[in-house]
């Protein structure tokens, strides 16, 4: 994680003093780190860009409540986690609504094919669609916990702090995510 250097603190003071342009330094310094997190959580580059943007907007709004002794990188990382979590939940609601609209009352509800065929897997193998498909069955909380633990290599305590849950809850979320991912991967291997 990027630790807050002297320049972060200076930029924050300048922004709070009314210099809006000073916020640019914070944005450029932490954007790529947030993008990696957002992409791993959303699995989509466009969504990841929006998450990064939303995180900086939200941070700007709450900047006056930021404690100067804290690390800005850690602070905005947690904000980005929440923005990504919101995005995942919003996307899940949209997908559920889409399924509802596309459903045919005579033929029953049509859902997206959870197990893509070999051709589709081959075409999109480069962007890690296997993993994405395996993670699609996770809840927003499980996915976030799994990404933070497995890909961002955060400790249970850090995950709990970012999600504002107890360490045990964070650990259980990771465990359930691992179970589901393995089951989905096994199913897809059989299908392929």
């Amino acid at each position, binding site marked *: 994680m990027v630790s807050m250097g002297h320049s972060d603190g200076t930029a924050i003071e300048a922004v709070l003093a009314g210099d809006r342009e000073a916020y640019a330094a914070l944005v450029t310094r932490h954007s790529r780190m947030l993008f990696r997190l957002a992409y791993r959580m959303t699995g989509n580059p466009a969504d990841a860009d929006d998450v990064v943007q939303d995180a900086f907007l939200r941070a700007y709004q709450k900047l006056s409540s930021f404690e100067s002794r804290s690390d800005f990188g850690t602070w905005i990382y947690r904000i980005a986690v*929440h923005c990504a979590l919101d995005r995942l939940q919003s996307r899940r609601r949209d997908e559920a609504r889409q399924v509802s609209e596309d459903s045919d009352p005579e033929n029953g509800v049509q859902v997206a094919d959870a197990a893509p065929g070999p051709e589709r897997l081959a075409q999109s193998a480069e962007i890690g669609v296997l993993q994405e498909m395996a993670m699609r069955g996770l809840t927003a909380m499980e996915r976030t916990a799994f990404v933070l633990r497995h890909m961002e290599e955060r400790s249970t305590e850090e995950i709990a702090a970012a999600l504002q849950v107890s360490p045990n809850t964070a650990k259980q979320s990771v465990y359930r995510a691992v179970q589901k991912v393995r089951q989905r991967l096994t199913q897809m291997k059989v299908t392929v």
Partner: protein
Amino acid sequence: MTHLSEEELVERYYRDGAAADGAEDRHVEECEECAAALAALESDLNAVRRMDVPERDGNYGDTIWKRVSSLLPESGAVLSVAKGAELLGDREVPQGLKPGIFKWRANGTTEVAPLREKLLRENRPLLWRGLGYAAGCAVLVAGAFYVGTVWEHQQHLRQDAARAAEHATPPVQQRVVVVVLGDHLDRSERLLVELKHADAEDPELVKPLREEARNLLAANREFRDDAEKTGDPALTKALGHLDTLLTEMANGPQGLNAAAIERLQKQMNEDGLLFEVRVLRSKNPHRESAVRVLARGGTA
């Protein structure tokens, strides 16, 4: 040591807390089943770890800043929801910015933002319309309050008038008396017997007769009228004779003096009134249950 659970294997994979102690290490080395399970878990999760993240070039920060800065307001400005939505376009409004008004805080800023003035200017017609609605509502509330006050005042006046009328004209105290024909005939018979043996020289004995005659008079007339309407000539005749006698007893101008009592006794004997009443009681028992409700005034 028992086999490691799947949860313990996951903890071990991530090296969480006390999961990676020596006892578990030795168990996994010695237990082929647990070793195989851990190997399978590592294989699956290592595969997921290969997820690549698209690279963003060195200008990515500038790109994001351009997007963010276009959404940031002027220092100290207050954005309306409509303006915020316009600025954001079709992009999702970040959570936390959605409620009512976006207040962007920038400490130390005293300059009035042009954007704020522009928003106020654009929203002035809406402001006047809102004030109009507010004034209309205030008039309605005031009118309703005034009407309510007047109505309540008039109600009080009506109640006061009614109360005053009650005090000014005391109601006629009417007694409702339920009279049964059998009882009436009993009382009449007793009165006639007392009259027959009355001693005109003793006024203390005569006075109750006069009072009793007054009490029986109204009921007697009611029963007589009923008998006439229902076509019972014997009863009508007997109650008619009784009415004459009771009237003289109750209202005689001289009171019940010796001459009056002697005259009444003579009249009673000539009419055979006492015998007639006794016959009515014995021959018409079904009539004894006839009931009359009398409303008597204070002077009855």
